């Protein structure tokens, strides 16, 4: 069922920009429709004017062929329409970009990295409570303030169905508020070119019902106790632990995504691949084939049994 929902989220139809799912995207969609339809209308008027200019009768042509027509069509009409649009746009802009805290909103920090996302759930005082990567769990109906930062180059955070995009710029923290009104999976992607595999830097937001969300949160805050296994030992011996953290174990690398709950993620490779066993195994053995240029080296020399053990271990980290 999860795979279905992920597939639907990724399907691109209906166009996510025109299929809003929250109060921070819905008014923009209304604006988009007005602009699209208005744009078509104006284009139709211009085409009609051009057709009259070419094929029209002499009386119509005379009306069109003077300074007066230019003043009306080229000046008065645009000024009136644009003034109205400007007022609409300005009020909507300040409403959507208000950053004063709202009572009861959630705080999350998302940091863009080449080419994945570091996610930290914060408490009211800004302390990190849960650490995760490449997906964001939120409760429906509750605003979420995302603090956007960058660890390296400029990235841009974009979940089209939940809101507009906001850049992640080194040295700055930008704030973007989103909210989902229905449970589901919402896809996103890095929008600012960030080199190499920028094309494959996706992201997933999962909106839960409030009850589900509480359950999810409880699961994540409970201390993790992964069982001893061959895979776990290999994970720590073969170098994986230098970059990755697995909660409750000696693996505490910080360069790559936190893998404490990798098995429960919707996707692999930063929102681009389904998280199933074959894909997981291929990723561990040769992530460069799946996402060329990413920072994780390929482990093609890993013996098959070791690969299987590590994959088993990863698969157990729910």
């Amino acid at each position: 069922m999860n795979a279905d929902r992920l597939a639907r989220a990724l399907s691109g139809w209906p166009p996510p920009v025109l299929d809003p799912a929250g109060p921070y995207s819905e008014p923009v969609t209304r604006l988009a429709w007005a602009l699209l339809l208005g744009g078509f209308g104006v284009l139709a008027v211009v085409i009609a004017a051009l057709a009259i200019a070419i094929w029209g009768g002499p009386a119509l042509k005379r009306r069109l062929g003077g300074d007066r027509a230019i003043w009306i069509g080229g000046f008065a009409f645009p000024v009136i329409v644009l003034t109205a649009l400007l007022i609409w746009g300005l009020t909507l802009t300040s409403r959507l970009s208000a950053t004063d805290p709202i009572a009861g909103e959630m705080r999350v920090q998302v940091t863009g990295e080449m080419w994945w996302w570091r996610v930290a759930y914060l408490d009211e005082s800004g302390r990190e409570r849960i650490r995760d990567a490449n997906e964001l769990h939120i409760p429906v109906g509750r605003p979420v303030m995302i603090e956007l930062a960058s660890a390296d180059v400029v990235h841009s955070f974009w979940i089209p169905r939940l809101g507009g995009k906001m850049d992640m710029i080194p040295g700055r923290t930008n704030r973007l508020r989103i909210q989902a009104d229905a449970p589901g999976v919402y896809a996103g992607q890095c929008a600012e070119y960030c080199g190499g595999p920028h094309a494959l830097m996706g992201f997933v937001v999962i909106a839960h019902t409030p009850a589900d969300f509480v359950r999810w949160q409880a699961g994540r805050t409970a201390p993790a106790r992964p069982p001893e296994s061959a895979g776990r030992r290999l994970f720590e011996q073969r170098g994986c632990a230098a970059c990755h953290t697995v909660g409750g174990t000696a693996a505490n690398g910080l360069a790559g995504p936190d893998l404490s709950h990798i098995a429960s993620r919707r996707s692999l490779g930063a929102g681009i691949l389904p998280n199933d066993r074959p894909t997981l195994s291929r990723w561990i053995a040769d992530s460069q084939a799946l996402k060329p240029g990413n920072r994780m080296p390929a482990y093609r020399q890993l013996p098959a049994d070791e690969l299987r053990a590590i994959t088993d271990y990863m698969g157990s980290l729910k």
Partner: protein
Amino acid sequence: MKGGWFLLLGGLIIWAAHFLALYVIGEALGLIGPARLAIVALTLIALAANILIVRSALRITLDTDFDRWRRSTILTQAFLSAVAIVWQSLPALL
């Protein structure tokens, strides 16, 4: 040819000065009370300056095609400039 280029480009020069002043205020002060007030004042000054431009344009004697062209350019430009100046101030007023 009194005023030459400055009169000929008057409306747009006023727009540019107004734009620059508002940009500096916005960057330096942000959206606080005094900034709004300053923006309103600057906008009124810019519009008044445009009226002065219009007045000098109306004084041009129309002897040649060039005079007529110059006057019409200055007048329409002042008009266009006034619209753009009002738009420019909207973000601070709304």
